[in-house]
């Protein structure tokens, strides 16, 4: 059994403008010690889906199932969830300055975390452990720095503090919500390395939420690509980069600066993501898809196995067979080109 099994997770919010369907049918499994990346643009439902797992998305209507080590997270009561949050599922967030309490010393904040889940640890022992953790995540003179306030640390150091705090009680799962987005590129790699090191030492599973495909390539074993609250494609790292099926994934990869080589223009995906309020029943990516055909506008595709590999799924009506898919794509592009030409 996997550590975390998510099936058909749906998250919606009631707003004055209508029901926002933030997540529509998310499913995945995650094993101990593995890293799953959730990739997508802003508003694609990446953060909401993980926050709803631990009951942090307030006012959300959540359905489906999420089994964490045999416990159904969606039906667990607040007391049970509280025991899981932090202790078994640690979280780190995007902006490490605003994520640490500005009024409390970092040591105090880590000690609070340790003692919240194990009262039997003495304050002194928790403090020693905090210092040890800070030096594990690469903070120099950790013993002296546990008495410092968050604003006395740099951005990368603060994120290390967050990681140290989240890992202080050795959770089985770490949810890292855009952990490197707010950091300098040079610091990003260091922070990722720290996460990997702790993962190796503690055997933690990681859900890595990001929109940075570079981070994905660095860290993940499996990748879920989300768009407008839906899973577009789910694949191993290798498949995602070299044998992707979904046109959205293709678009994401094509918009990486390195793809075209030096001197070529960037090729972003045209158009903007759709609104999640009362979405129509069609492929959400159809309006921006270069290969969209009539079926895409009529029916919303569910993820299905592609290229004969059960670990690779794609929610696209294009053929699941590699050769046929290539032909179909060529035909769509050709027919679109001819349609655009003046008669």
């Amino acid at each position: 059994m996997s550590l975390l099994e998510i099936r058909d997770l749906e998250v919606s919010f009631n707003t004055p403008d209508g029901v926002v369907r933030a997540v529509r049918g998310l499913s995945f499994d995650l094993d101990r010690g593995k890293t799953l990346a959730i990739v997508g643009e802003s508003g694609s439902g990446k953060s909401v889906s993980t926050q709803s797992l631990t009951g942090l998305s307030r006012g959300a209507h959540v359905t489906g199932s999420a089994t964490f080590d045999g416990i159904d997270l969606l039906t667990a009561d607040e007391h049970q969830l509280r025991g899981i949050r932090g202790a078994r599922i640690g979280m780190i967030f995007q902006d490490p300055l605003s994520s640490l309490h500005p009024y409390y010393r970092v040591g105090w904040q880590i000690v609070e975390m340790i003692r919240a889940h194990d009262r039997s640890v003495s304050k002194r022992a928790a403090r020693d452990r905090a210092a040890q953790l800070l030096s594990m995540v690469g903070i120099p003179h950790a013993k002296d720095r546990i008495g410092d306030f968050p604003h006395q640390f740099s951005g990368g150091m603060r994120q290390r503090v967050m990681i140290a705090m989240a890992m202080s009680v050795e959770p089985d799962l770490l949810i890292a919500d855009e952990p490197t987005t707010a950091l300098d590129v040079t610091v990003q790699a260091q922070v990722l390395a720290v996460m990997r090191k702790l993962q190796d030492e503690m055997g933690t599973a990681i859900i890595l939420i990001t929109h940075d495909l570079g981070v994905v390539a660095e860290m993940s074993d499996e990748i879920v690509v989300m768009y407008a609250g839906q899973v577009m494609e789910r694949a191993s790292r290798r498949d995602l980069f070299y044998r992707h099926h979904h046109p959205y994934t293709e678009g994401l990869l094509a918009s990486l600066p390195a793809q075209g080589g030096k001197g070529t223009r960037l090729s972003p995906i045209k158009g903007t993501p759709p609104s999640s309020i009362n979405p129509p029943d069609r492929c959400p990516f159809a309006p921006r898809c270069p290969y969209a055909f009539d079926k895409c506008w009529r029916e919303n595709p569910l993820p299905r196995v592609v290229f004969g590999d059960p670990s690779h799924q794609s929610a696209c009506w294009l053929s699941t067979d590699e050769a046929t898919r290539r032909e179909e794509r060529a035909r769509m592009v050709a027919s679109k080109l001819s349609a655009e030409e003046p008669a």
Partner: protein
Amino acid sequence: MIRFLIRRILLGILVLWLITMAVFGLFFVAPNNVARTMAGRQATPQTVELIRERLGLDQPVWKQYLDFIWKALHGNLGYDYYYQLPVTHIMAQALPITLSLALGASVIWLIIGVTNGVLSAVYPRSFIDRGLTAFALFFYSFPSFLLGLVLLYFIYYKLTLSGLRWFPPGGYAPLSQGPGQWALHMILPWLTLALVLAATYTRLTRSSMLDVLGEDYVRTARSKGLSERRVVLRHGLRSALTPVVTQFGIDLGQLIGGVVVTETVFSLPGLGKTVIDAITRQDLPVIVGIVIFASAAVVTANILVDVAYALLDPRVRLH
């Protein structure tokens, strides 16, 4: 910190000095006939002149002022025109009453205001929130003289008429008559003052708390698996209190200088009532003395608020 304090205190002294000049100036610009009033209706011009001389009013204004400053620096704020009592003595008698009123009320309004504000913010747009908001707005729009009279009418007048002589109609009982009597005399004034201010604090705490509860670090606190109580109080309220403390310092500073309306309604001879009486009698030394004290209270409160800020928020450094 020390340099900051010294600078602020010097600045405060400058402010107080300017205020004494302003009060003196205003007093002599306005038509002034203290001597005539004191002399009585049928006094001869000679008598009036004699009184003016004795009060020092025949001297040029600048000389009176310098005289006043010189004595004030030696701890002597002069004597009141009518009974020749030292102004410091008059103030020393009135101050405990104002302090009792302001400090007692502040405890009540802080408890009500902060509790209601936190509840409103934790359950926003709920029945509790709307109820507490209505409660706050009701008292917020209540003039305190009217609230005082309404309390007196129902809780003193009506109760006493129906045979329950629980509350006195007003006046002050010093602590030396026992804390029970003291509190009994203060309850209605406390409520009058506190309910109006509690409304402000409810709104202030609510909005500040709502801001803080939306902060990332509160989400972090929840993600750590802390109890909701700890998240709200230890992580939320701790930050949300900063603006409340600021407001509290300023309000308390103002009140300690005299609570004019409430003291008048309940005939409490505190600084507020004393200064109002002094103004109607044009008793300059008393007016100046109390105004200086009130200003000093406000200035001190402001300095303390800045110090409190630095103590509350580690990111703030005083320069």
